[in-house]
Every structure is written in C-alpha cells, then in structure tokens.
C-alpha cells in the first residue's frame, strides 16, 4: 500500500503544481454555477427537492467530463514523457501503480465535489431538503465520477498520448452512457442487460431522488474494479509486446 499512496501523493501534487488541476477546478465550478442558476433553479417555481435533483443531474455530467479530463493524462503522459520507465524499472507492481493513479484522481474529484457543496447548501438553507438526499446525491457523484475515472484510466493505459487517451476515454464513457438508448430498442434479454450495463440512467435516478440501493452501489464498484483490473492487465501485457 505504501507505494500506491506514494504514487497517489506525487500525482496529486502534480495536479496542483501545474495548470491542469486549477483549470479543471475552475471550469467545473464555473459550469456548476451557471447550470445551477439556469437549469436547476430556472424560472418556474419548483420544490426544493426538484431543484436538488436537477442539480445532481447536471453535476453528474460535469463529474463524468471531469473524470475523463483527470484520468486521460495519468498513464498516457508518463508514456509521452518517458517517465513510465521509472515504474517499469522500480520494485512497484502494475497494480500499485494503477491504483495509485486512480486514488490521486479520485481524491482530486472529491476536492471538486467538496468545492461544489455550497450549491446544495444554498438549497438546504433556503429550501426544505434532507441531508440524506444531499448525501445520496453526492454518493452517486463520487461513484459515477470514480467509474468514469476508472474507464478513462484504462483508455490512458492503452493510449500512446494524452489526446488519444482523452478521445478514447470519452468514447468509452459515452458508449457506457448511451447503452440505455440501445436498451430501449433491444429485445429481451438484451434489453435488461444493456439497461443494467448503462452507467447513468437506471443506476443514477434513485440516487438523485435520495434513494440508495445496494445493487446500484455494487454496480458502480464493479465497473470501477473491472476497468482498474483491465488497466493492470494491459500494463502487464506491455512487457511482452515491447
């Protein structure tokens, strides 16, 4: 675990010692603020819980986009700059490296979520929503964001540079996102399978309404674990390919 956290700590430091971290934070908070006013509050009269559900709806999109941006550089940049050699020739396992990278992006996204807390806090102070509703929404944002980071980290592992990693990560994420559309036109049992695999629709809605299902948590944890292990295997296979 020591090496995992060593990698995570350095990577987190890199987010804040370059423009990358600040730009992602500023952009996410700026868009959060605009959408909160224009979309969540809007012109019509709404219940506080509706405003909060709307906030979580657009915040989920921002969490996914931020996830792609955060993860696209994690391995691809190391390959691009040649610093990946340091890991290949040091006593650190591929799993420690991948999980370390993942933890760094996860911590960064948590910071991002914490910085956006003032928006639901405004609803809590001025309206009537439960802390449980806010907590379940944020749990969803963390799980969804982590899933996107995991998917894009895999894209970063198999891509030669950041640009390709970003495009590939976005492609994977969007594919996972629109599976529910395919589910709409598919016949059973594929309908159920595609609907279950979709990253947003079926698993997202209960959280945004303040309802937490264990099966949804298990789904997101499975996605995270699956793509992290895919990244580990892809990195291990590199030694053979050369």
């Amino acid at each position, binding site marked *: 675990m020591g090496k995992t956290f060593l990698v995570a700590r350095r990577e987190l430091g890199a987010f804040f010692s370059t423009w990358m971290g600040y730009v992602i934070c500023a952009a996410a908070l700026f868009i959060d603020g605009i959408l909160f006013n224009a979309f969540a509050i809007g012109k019509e009269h709404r219940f506080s819980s509706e405003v909060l559900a709307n906030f979580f709806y657009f915040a989920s999109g921002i969490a996914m986009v931020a996830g792609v941006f955060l993860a696209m550089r994690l391995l691809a940049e190391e390959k691009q700059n040649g*610093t990946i050699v340091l890991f290949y020739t*040091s006593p650190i396992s591929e799993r420690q490296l991948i999980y370390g990278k993942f933890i760094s992006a996860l911590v960064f996204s948590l910071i991002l979520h914490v910085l956006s807390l003032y928006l639901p806090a405004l609803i809590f102070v001025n309206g009537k929503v439960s802390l449980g509703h806010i907590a379940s929404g944020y749990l969803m944002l963390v799980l969804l964001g982590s899933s996107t980071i995991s998917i894009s980290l895999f894209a970063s592992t198999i891509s030669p540079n950041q640009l390709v990693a970003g495009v590939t990560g976005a492609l994977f994420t969007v594919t996972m996102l629109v599976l529910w559309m395919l589910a709409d036109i598919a016949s059973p049992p594929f309908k159920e399978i595609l609907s279950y695999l979709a990253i947003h629709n079926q698993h997202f809605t209960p959280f945004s309404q303040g309802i937490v299902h264990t099966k949804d948590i298990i789904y997101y944890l499975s996605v995270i674990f699956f793509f992290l292990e895919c990244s580990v295997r892809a990195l291990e296979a590199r*030694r*053979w390919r050369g």
Partner: protein
Amino acid sequence: MIIAENLTKTYPGRKAIDNVTFTIRGGEIVGLLGLNGAGKSTILKILGCFLMPSAGKAQVGGFSVDENPQAIRRLIGYLPDHPPLYDEMNVHSYLTYVARLKSVPSSEVASKVDHAMGVTNLTKVKEVALGELSHGFRQRVGIAQAIVHQPKVIILDEPINGLDPVQIVEMRDLITSLRGKHTVILSSHILSEITKTCDRILIVDQGQLIAEGSEAELSSQLAQQQKLSIEVETFSESLQKKLAGLPGITNLKVQGSSENSRFQKIYLESQGDLRSKISELIVNEKAGLLGMVRLEAGLEGVFLKLIKPVEER
C-alpha cells in the same frame, strides 16, 4: 552478476536482437557498442525488466528476468536514453520520491538522497525545478536517480548523449568512480567514450553480438590483418607491381610525395606478417627503404571492420 543466454527479441517482421549471449562479472564496467538501431537499448531494456525476451534467458544477480522481475528491480538502477524526470518537481523532492519508489527504508532516504546529490554534484541545484535545468544537469539527475538506492547493478543507456565536452569528462569520471562498487553496463555509439570508461566491450550489430573483449583483445583479433606504412627513397612502377604481386597483399596505395619531400609513402594491407618479405623486396629493388611502421588497428578499426555490411563480411 549478469548472464544472457541466447537472448532474442522479435517484433513483427524483424528481430531486434538475435541469440545474444554474454556474461558480466560483479564490479565490471562493460560497454555495449553499436550503431543506432543495433539492438543495444533492447538488451538493456530486457536486463532492466522493462521488456520480456521472445526467447533465451537473462539473469541479473541470480534472478531471472522472466520469473522474478521484482527482485531484479530492487538490484538495479536504470538510466534510459532520456532521463525520466518530472519537470514540476525539484531535484531534492524528485530524488526523495525515487528513493522511496526504490524501497529505500524511510530512515535512510535523506542520507542516500544527499549522497546521490553529492556524487553527481547536484547539491547546489537541489531546490531548482527539473524543468529549469540544463541538459547536462538533467542527465546528472538521471544518473542520480539510477544510483540513489545504491544498487548492485547500474544500467545506463547512452549516458553521454547530448552532453558537451566538459560534461562528458564529468560523466566519464562519475561512471569510472562507480568501478568496483557497482556492476555497470552502459551503451554508446561513441567509441572513444567506451574505450575510456569500460573494462570490457560488447560490440552489437544488427541485433547480434559480433565481438567481445577488452580493447586490446579486440584489436588483436585484427592482428592477422596488418596495415603498414612504408617510406622509400625511389619509387618505381616495377616495385609497385612486385609489392602488389606478393602473396597475401590485399591493398596497396601510393601516397603522392610533396615537392619538398624526396620520399614516397606506400600504404599496404596484408593477411599475415609480410614485413620481412616486403623489406627484402624493397632492398633487392634498391628502392631505399627508409622506414616501415605497423599501424595499430585501434578500437575504431575493429569497430568499423566488424560492423561493415553483412555481405562484405
């Protein structure tokens, strides 16, 4: 300390290295010499557990690169052709990070980082960001990260690449200072540096190990082919014909004499030692033998001869 047996690495459509076999003893400094693309880096990457061989075996410190790469990674320090540096970190924090990555116990990290900076003359710039360092300093940091955990084996891929003459001398001194304490294998395509730094040389060409030994040993491999520079007082076409007709002469060039010189220089290449026959012939021709010098092949000669195109070998 390092054993390679029939090491082969194949990529689709080509062999990067082919049946390479060699042994390196503990404490030796060994140079891999070859043209760009000869396969030097591939050998080093396999020894550094960076790549898996397609066939053959490699062992470092008794551990196999196939079966126990993590054990080898604890034993080695590796400098790739481009130092793996994070531009946003400063020298001290980077070396501290690398030391931890290399499993140096926490209590020893500070002392080992100080030692590595001292050996590589980096103490003065320890607070400077890596991105602001000159190429020479970056290369030094690359060496420092390779030795910070005081590994038994140090692998250096083109360590003097891009350095200016002063930096080359410093780098050479640094590498030779590692002799005895560490086993060093380094690659270069610069002959003079390999000669000055290494105890032994492995010459690689088109993925194959074509010669190995010390500079003297390699030069003596070419002793069979002699190169002679001869000075005569009177040169004639008859002498030229008779010299060229001697059995064993492979090449003869007459170097034109200057107006101020009474002497004529002849350059001869022969298979075997023909010096007595040549001198006898010149004396019989009454050409006036003024001098005969055997030209040493030198490492450059060995290298150029060994790596000439396959069809000429």
